[in-house]
């Protein structure tokens, strides 16, 4: 019985941890969520990729010679 209870508590803790992980950062506003969505899967994804590539291109130690 004790073992069953321990497992149950452990599962509950894991499920709570999973729920918080999947919910994202609670500090982020709705405007922030919307902008992040546009950056990653929406109309700003191309500009986001260009911004990341520019950081690598400006620093050979970071970006190496991968010219994709």
């Amino acid at each position, binding site marked *: 019985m004790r073992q069953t209870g321990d497992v149950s508590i452990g599962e509950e803790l894991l499920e709570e941890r999973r729920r918080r*992980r999947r*919910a994202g950062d609670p500090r*982020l506003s709705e405007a922030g969520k919307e902008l992040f969505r546009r950056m*990653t899967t929406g109309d*700003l994804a191309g500009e986001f990729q260009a911004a990341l590539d520019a950081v690598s291109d400006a620093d050979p130690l970071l970006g190496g*010679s*991968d010219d*994709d």
Partner: protein
Amino acid sequence: MIVVDEYLAVRVLSGDWPGELPDDDVVLPTSRHWRLLQRVHNPSGGQLSQLLANLPGDDLGVVRWPHPEVLSVLDPRPLLDEAAAIAARFGGTGWLIAETLAAGVAHGHRLWFGTPDNVGRVLERAASELGIAVHVVTG
């Protein structure tokens, strides 16, 4: 532990968990966090920079200091030796690719990207030779 790129890190931070992503702790290599931070602290101009600058409150703090229950930034020190070996073996990788591949080797021989545009040919070829599965989330 799931090693992700900047796209998936930002999606996870915003609560947009891709259905294809396994249910596990999510980690971002330091070099990829660095690229995000560069855009926060050194805007490149253009529409995206303006929109980021106009975000309310401390929204960018979410990227600067990710909530540890949501996203962790990998400690690069245990990866250094493997990353150096990878850089020497494949050449031209730079820290970004070498660290990402070393993280993939250390964490289940798999990497997760949010778009094929963020993978690159050098990483793709090296990952194949290192036995690392490169997953690209499509939805």
